[in-house]
Each structure stands twice: as C-alpha cells, then as structure tokens.
C-alpha cells in the first residue's frame, strides 16, 4: 500500500474544480465535498461498492484530502453505475454520483486510462456505434465489445435465444448520421 500525502501541491485546484462543477450540476445540493462527514451511507446503499477498491465514501475522502489523482486512477469511479442511490440518501446532500461522474470526465480530459478496462471498452464501443449510425445497433455493440475485450464468448448463449425471440434486429437503422458525426466532432473537440 502506498503512503498518501495529505493535500499534495496543486490539489486545491482539483478540489475547487470538482466543487465548481457540483454547483452547476445541482445548485440545491451541497456546495462542496467538505460537506461530507463520512457517515458511509453512500457505500451502504451502493450496488457496486463490493467491486470497488475505494468505495464511494472513500472516493469522496480521497477528494477531501486532495488525492484526486488516486481517485482518477481508481476502479471505483468506473464501477459506479450512476444509479444515484447515494446522492438521494446522503444526509448532507452531497451529490456523490455527481462527484463520481466528474472524476470520470476529469480522467478522460487528462487522458488517464480508465482503471476498469471492460467498462471503458463497453462505453467506447457504444459511442462508436452511435457515432456511426446515429442510433445504437445492439448486436454490433456486443460483438465489438467481445472482440476488443477478448471475452469472445461473453453472453454467446444469448444471441441465438434473442434472435429466436425476435428481439435482435438484423440490420442497423441509420438516422441523421451525418449531423450526428458533426455533433460528436464538435462536442469532443470543444474546449
């Protein structure tokens, strides 16, 4: 285990950036991560906490002590499924789900490779798919994900079943795809 420094140089800026974003996300919620008094209710209700090396309250703690960098590299922020149970029940109105997402966006901005390879590949495959057709084409999403993640036979039993149930379309529907591609380009390149 690594020994952590408290409030390493430059950490104030990271905390400020996160607090500022919390304010725009939901003006009614707590204004700062300092508001968290570490009761753990977020972790208690989190469906994925058992899969995290730092569960939600510890992610908030990392931000509180300025170790945002550790949080950005954690698996925890990617295992979060954005169910918002934490934010809903937080006694201090801390928007924990908002902090989680802010950290994911920060990690992307800083080019930090998501620590959860599978979740990342899934999301990227999803977006690529949407960028291509404007709408999601589910069979291709699973196919691409399985190839990239090398989980070739993940859910392999489901395909034939879903096909037989008429749940899987055979061809993608394309919708307004030229504009969608422009939208992606503008959004992802915007500063």
């Amino acid at each position, binding site marked *: 285990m690594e020994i952590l420094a408290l409030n390493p140089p430059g950490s104030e800026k990271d905390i400020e950036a996160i607090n500022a974003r919390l304010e725009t996300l939901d003006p009614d919620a707590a204004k700062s991560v300092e508001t968290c*008094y*570490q*009761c*753990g*209710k*977020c*972790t*208690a*209700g*989190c469906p994925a*906490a*058992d899969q995290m090396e*730092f*569960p939600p*309250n*510890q992610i908030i703690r990392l931000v509180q002590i300025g170790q945002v960098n550790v949080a950005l590299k954690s698996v925890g922020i990617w295992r979060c499924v954005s169910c918002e*149970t934490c934010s809903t*029940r*937080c*006694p*201090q*109105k801390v928007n924990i789900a908002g902090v989680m997402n802010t950290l994911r966006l920060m990690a992307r901005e800083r080019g930090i490779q998501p620590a959860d390879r599978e979740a990342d590949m899934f999301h990227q495959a999803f977006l690529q798919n949407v960028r291509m057709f404007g709408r999601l084409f589910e069979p291709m999403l699973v196919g691409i994900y399985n190839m990239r993640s090398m989980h070739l036979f993940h859910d392999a039993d489901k395909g034939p079943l879903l096909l037989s149930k008429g749940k899987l379309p055979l061809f993608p529907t394309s919708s307004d795809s030229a504009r969608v591609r422009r939208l992606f380009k503008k959004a992802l390149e915007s500063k």
Partner: protein
Amino acid sequence: MARIGVFVCHCGENIARTVNCAKVAEEAAKMPGVVYALDYKYMCSDPGQEIILKAIKEHRLTSVVVAACSPHMHEKTFRGTASRGGLNPYMCEQANIREHCSWVHESIPEGTDKAIDIVRTLVAKVMRDQPLDVIKVPVTKRCMVIGGGIAGIQAALDVAAAGYEVVLVERQASIGGHMSQLSETFPTLDCSQCILTPRMVEVAQHPKIKLYTFSEVEAVSGYVGNFKVKIRRKARYVKEEVCIRCGLCTQKCPAKKIPNEFNCGLDNRTAIHVPFPQAVPNIPRIDRENCTWFQKGKCGVCKKICPVNAVDYEMEDKIVEEDIGAIVVATGYELYDIAGNDPNGLYSGYGEYGKGKYADVIDGLQFERLASASGPTGGEIRRPSDGKEPKTIAFLACIGSRDNQKGISFCSNICCMYLAKHAMLYEHKVHGGKGYIFYMDIRSGGKSYDEFVRRAVEEDHVCYVRGRVSKVYKRGDKIVLRGTDTLLGRPIELEADMVVLATAVTPSPGVEKLAQMLGIPYDKYKFLSEAHPKLRPVETVTAGIYLAGCCQGPKDIPLTVAQASGAASKVLALLSRSELEREPTVAKVDETTCVACWCCYEVCPYNAIEKKEIRDRKGNLIKMVANVNRGLCQGCGLCAATCRSGSIDLAGFNDEQLMAEIEALAQVR
C-alpha cells in the same frame, strides 16, 4: 458646558492590533467638549476603572465616552464606574471600536481612522445626553412554570422551596413528562420511575405549588414582575375534587382498543383512563374523541358505575386567571416522526427506513417502554409484531439528527448515550441476544459517560458498527439492514429481528404559539432561544421569562435538572426583590401632537403601546393617544421610527442625539 472624558481601551491586543489607540486618544482630545483623553491596555479592569474615576474627579468631567468593546459586553460595567464617580450612569456612553472596527479591519491606518470616527459620533451624542432615572416596577411574588416534565418539576420545587408560590401548568393529564416513560437512565442505570415519582408526589403535596394538569396557557399579558396569565383548564369530565381513585370506571369502560400514548402505541387503553398507574394526579379523564358516550350518545357505563358520582359529561373547559411575577418555560420535546407527519413540513421522514410501516422498526422511546417494568411487556424485550423475543437488535443512531436531507442539522445530544444503555439493557435481559449499534461518532462527553459506553462494548459485548444504514426493509419475519462498515470500507448486510431508531429530539408541537404569546424568540427548528449562549443560558431576551430543559435544545436529564435549577435561581433573584429596576431608555409619546394613527401600536413587538383616553373633567372623551407602558417597553425604537407625526422619542436615543451622531460622522476628516 459639557466636560467630556474619552477613554480608549486596547482590549489587550484585540483592539490595539489594528487600531493605534494612542492616536485615537490624541485625536479625541481635540474634539469639541473633550477635556481629557487617555488610552490604556484594559479599561474594564480594576486599574482601568480607577483611571476613569480619578479623571472624573480631577477634571470635573460631566460625561464619559469609553471606546472599547460592544456595549453588550461592558456598558453596565462602565456606567457603574461613572455612577461611582458621582455621574448619572446614563451620561456614560460606550464607543464600539472592537466588533465594529478592529475585528473587521486589517490595517492600522484604516482601523485607526474608523475608530476616530466612531469616537467622534459618541462624543457628539454624549454631549446631548440627559440624566435618566431607572424605572421602578413592583413584583408579584409568584412564579408560573409551563410544562410538568422533569425540568418543570425541578424548577417548581426549587422555587417553592424558597417559599414562593408556584403555578405549574401541564398540558397532559399527568405531570412526569417523557422521563416517566423511561426505563433505566444512563450512566448509573437508576430506574427512572424510582427517582422521578417521589418528585411528582412532592409537587402534588407541596403547599406552595398549585398544579393545573390537562391545562394550557391561553394568553399572557403584562411584563416582568407583573404578568397576567389566562389558563385553559380543559374538561376531564371527571370531578377532581370528588373522585376517590377507585379505578372502577377505567376497568369497566367498554372502549378498550385505543392506542395507549404513554406506551407509545405498544398496547391499548380505555376511553376513560389514567395515563399510567403512577400518574399525578391519579385521576381519570375521558378521551372525548374515543368515548362512545360522546361520539354516539350511548354507553354511560363510567357514570353509572362511579360510586361517588364524579363523572360529569356536562363539564366544560374553564379559564382561570393568575397574577405572575416570573415565568419558566419547560415545554420539553417530542421525537422525530420517521413517517414524516410533521405539521410544519420541516421534517421529511424516512422512506428508506419504511416510513413507519414496519411494526418491528421502533423508536428509542418505544424501546424504553419495552424495557420498563411498568411497560406493556412488564419489562421483557418482545417485539411488537408477534411478541417474540428478538435475538438480534440493530440500533441506529442519528435518525433525523445531523441529517440535512431530512430537515435537521443539529445533534440530538442524548442518543449516543441512550443507545448504549438500550443495547446494554437488552443484552442483560435477553440471554444470547446480540445488539448492534450503527453510529457515525460516539458523543459521550458527560461525566462517566465514556466509561459507560466502553462498558457496553467491553463487558456487555455490544457491537458498534461505524456507518449509516442505507436502507431497512422486511424479508420474511426479519428486518434486513443494508449498511456499511466504514472502518473496513465494505458494504455489509445484517438480518435483525428488530430495529430501534434513535430519532431526533424536536421541540414540542405548538411551542411557537406559546413563544409568540410570551414574546420570546425561537430558532428555525422552534427551539426557544436563550439570551446569550454562554453567559445567559437560562434567560430569554424578554425580562422575567426563563427556559429549562429540552425546549431550549436537546439535553439529557442531568443537564435539564441543572438548567431548571439555574432558571429557578434566576426566578428567586427576581422574586426576592421588592421592586424591579428597568432601563429608562424607553419610548415616550408627546400627547399634544399624537394623532392616534396607531402605527406605533401595529409595529411594537412587545405590545407596549396602549391606547389611552384623554377626557375632560366631566368625563367627555377629548381624544385618544398612544401611551407607552414603561414596564413592557424594551427601547427598540421601532415606534419612534414609525411615528408619522414625530410624536415619539426614545430616551437616551432621541432624534437630536442621532442627528448629531450622523453629522459628526459626515464631517470631513
């Protein structure tokens, strides 16, 4: 011709850090009317006051300005000094160069300039000061205590012990309050009833205490030493003076399925009932809403069976009036309702803990009844749903407390301790039972409190789990808790047989109505406000009205009793005087110019404006004018500022003085 002395205090470094005090004194010496100016390290100290006394004599001063802290802090001190020097105390003014100046500025030039300005305004004011004489009012040597819980009982007994009459008004049918519901008390595990009930009996038997139970304060008028109180004695439908307490009526009453409030709804009572066996007075009352006679016009069993004909269905509420000198408010608390049934909408309840729909999720007071020998189970721990002995109980701290999401930010103070006690009692009573306490922090700062908590852990093996629970729900006949152990950083799950929620302490419902009647402030949660959080903890800002117990904020029994005795000592100090002195800085109406528009009447927060008739010798009404009741007026000045015809002035703060202050401030430096 005024001969003014100016004394500039350093307040150690508090003022001197950002104000050049010598410079202020030097500039003050040049101000018109000032004949002497000096600075000193601690003006309020003995040598400091000596300097003022000496200067008054040597320089034949007519008035004094002390530039120091806030008048809230030391106006009394310095006016006392002036008085000892032979001046009228109201010829001494205090210039606040600390809170208004040194504490809010960072540089010496800035602070010094402002301090000089402040001193200049006070010099201009003091030059126009008039000697004032204190107002003297008589004192009615009787005290009213509102609320008959342990706070009210203690205050009443203390005041009565000194020989003064006490009127104790209790809303419920018996005195005793929540303490009479408790099982055993921390940190000594005394039986609550054993230490309380003798006190209750003492109240009932005390020749100096007049007890009004099932009664409420209806109206309060007057002022310190001279209150007039109307009390509504609600109809019990049983004649107190006739009833022989045989208990036949309560045995025979056929309406038996009414939730028993005293046992927190854990069992039932009859419509005609005594709240609990040890009630004082031990006289039944009929609960009209649930009585067959009152609701359907049939039955009448209690009346028929009563051997002394004490039941009276025709009884009506009575209003009694009492003259009172001092009032102690001791209205107590209620617990936060997790179902969120708060009439004021302040508290939102707990959907994630079932909103009150699970019978085996109870609150701390319900557990007290389960653990109490006088409770519905005779002190055996049995769960409400099926009467089974719970093998696992989870106790949850901070339910409603410290929870902004649910409407409350404060700590309820008592829960850490009573949960430790609950868990301890449970482990003593149920062989093989296991208690878990889910907590955030353990607050056990009282005498012998932390030792008590450690005993719960080390000797009784209560398992403390650090972390709030996210959700509580039913699975079969178990209650499942989804929690976390933050010390491990892992989510955890516990299947319990019963859950006890330490719900927040909230003020008694309706207390704000009483507070408005009494003219005393309360905070956003409706806890009543003390005059000063440290130095005047049992007084309110309204003279003659004092606070005791949980109406002021959540507190345990030792603190409540201490505060009640504190309030009683304040009452005694008041009642032991033959007359009271009141600040003469009150409003005065010029009757010749008053046009009776009653704007002052509307704005006065203390009901101090009276409508006065002016009549000629024959008794014909000439005109109506406003009149200030000097006993009630607190000198806030609202009426003076509001008066359209400029007919009201405030002694010590008259228009001429205020204008002079403004002019002095507006002077170019």
